[in-house]
């Protein structure tokens, strides 16, 4: 619980009116951001422990897994998905009802195969090339991703699903440019 307290304290500080409204001085904004980032990192460690407890492991592979979090998925940046040709992903649904959620992962391959569930069901996916023009791979974020891997995660209420994602052979979705009359 002391790890969770770091974020609790940061949130407590952020109840101050200037953090809520964004009227703090810039130096204070940086301080708020640092506190929240530290709190978030500590909570990710807790989630790491929780996921290892939730996932039943065979006795032969009892070692705890190290789960990593991609904090920059919103700007198509994730070192782990960009730099590995195969990886596992767990998606936890905090809502008390089942949810279907479209996920986008920054990748560099042209095609991928995704399996889920204990029976290894195939999950349909699409590799969408990123566009420099719309700054989906902005120079700002140092990402090496060239595409987004898109698929739908079907999640149980207050539960999780795991996915095995690996690069395969195939083609990406084509991008068509439109020449407009002006």
């Amino acid at each position: 619980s002391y790890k969770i307290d770091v974020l609790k304290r940061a949130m407590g500080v952020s109840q101050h009116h200037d953090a809520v409204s964004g009227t703090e001085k810039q130096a204070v904004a940086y301080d708020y951001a640092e506190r929240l980032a530290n709190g978030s990192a500590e909570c990710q460690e807790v989630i790491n422990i929780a996921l290892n407890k939730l996932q039943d492991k065979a006795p032969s592979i009892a070692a705890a897994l190290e789960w990593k979090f991609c904090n920059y998925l919103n700007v198509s940046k994730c070192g782990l998905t960009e730099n590995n040709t195969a990886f596992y992903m767990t998606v936890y649904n905090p809502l008390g009802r089942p949810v279907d959620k479209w996920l986008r992962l920054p990748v560099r391959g042209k095609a991928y195969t995704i399996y889920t569930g204990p029976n290894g069901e195939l999950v349909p996916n699409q590799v969408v090339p990123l566009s420099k023009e719309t700054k989906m791979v902005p120079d700002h974020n140092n990402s090496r991703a060239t595409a987004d891997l898109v698929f739908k995660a079907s999640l149980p209420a207050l539960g999780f699903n795991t996915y095995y994602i690996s690069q395969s052979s195939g083609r990406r979705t084509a991008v068509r440019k439109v020449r407009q009359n002006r």
Partner: protein
Amino acid sequence: NSDVTLKNERVSVVFDSMTGLVKEMTNTDKGISIPLSQNFFYYIGHDGDNSKPEKQASGAYIFRPNETNPYPINTSATLEIVNGELVNEVRQVFSNYTSQVVRLYAGSPYVEFEWTVGPIPIGDNKGREVITRYMTKLASDNKFYTDANGREILQRVRNYRPTWKLNQTEPVAGNYYPINSRAFIRDEVANSDIQFTVLNDRSQGGGSIQDGNLEIMLHRRLLHDDSLGVGEPLNETGVAGNGLVVRGKHYVYLGDKSSSAKLHRDLGEEIFMAPITAFTTSKLTPEEWA
């Protein structure tokens, strides 16, 4: 030379071939179709004069545009189209600091507008406040609706306050309200059942300055302190020193009032409590993993 249509089995959005802007939206499930236009604009922030309270500058506390009408960032956008089995998207570039991806996932009843704005240019010494504006022809009768911190939906009436007689001196800012998770406009004409709803991924400000329109503030960069205590202009330069680039999403739904009410409650919850993703590069085979 023909218009570009983004569609799935439930909804479609048409983009004008001449301008590259959104032109029409249809809810196929409900058989509702409306002319819809969407574009990015900016207000120029008031420079102000801090020695005179009536000449307040636009700043961190205060939104005070120089003029009532915002300037379009561009009157057209270049387009790129991606068609696939799971997601179709149209990418629009409006300027070197404004772009957008309009996405439609298979089976989705709503359209996702992912906007990217910044760094806002200030080379001409003008502070800018960038908005997106969704323009319909709905007869919204001076009204629009926002949420109160994701809970109660409140009706907002232009140039009106329910508990006192308002002397409106700010035609734009005086009609801006917090949009914490959603806002919508309705066709207020009798027997019409159309509602246009926008859910956002973060708290923003916005208003319906003209009937049928819904505008939402996306990003601000200002050059003067508004003299209310912060003591700095709202001019975040970021790590590179040129200003921040901001990206976010709007989820747009066109429907009747009852289906809109259901959708924005469910979807609002899903946006607020989004799934948590975690990754690992375990050496286990998929069989061992299973």
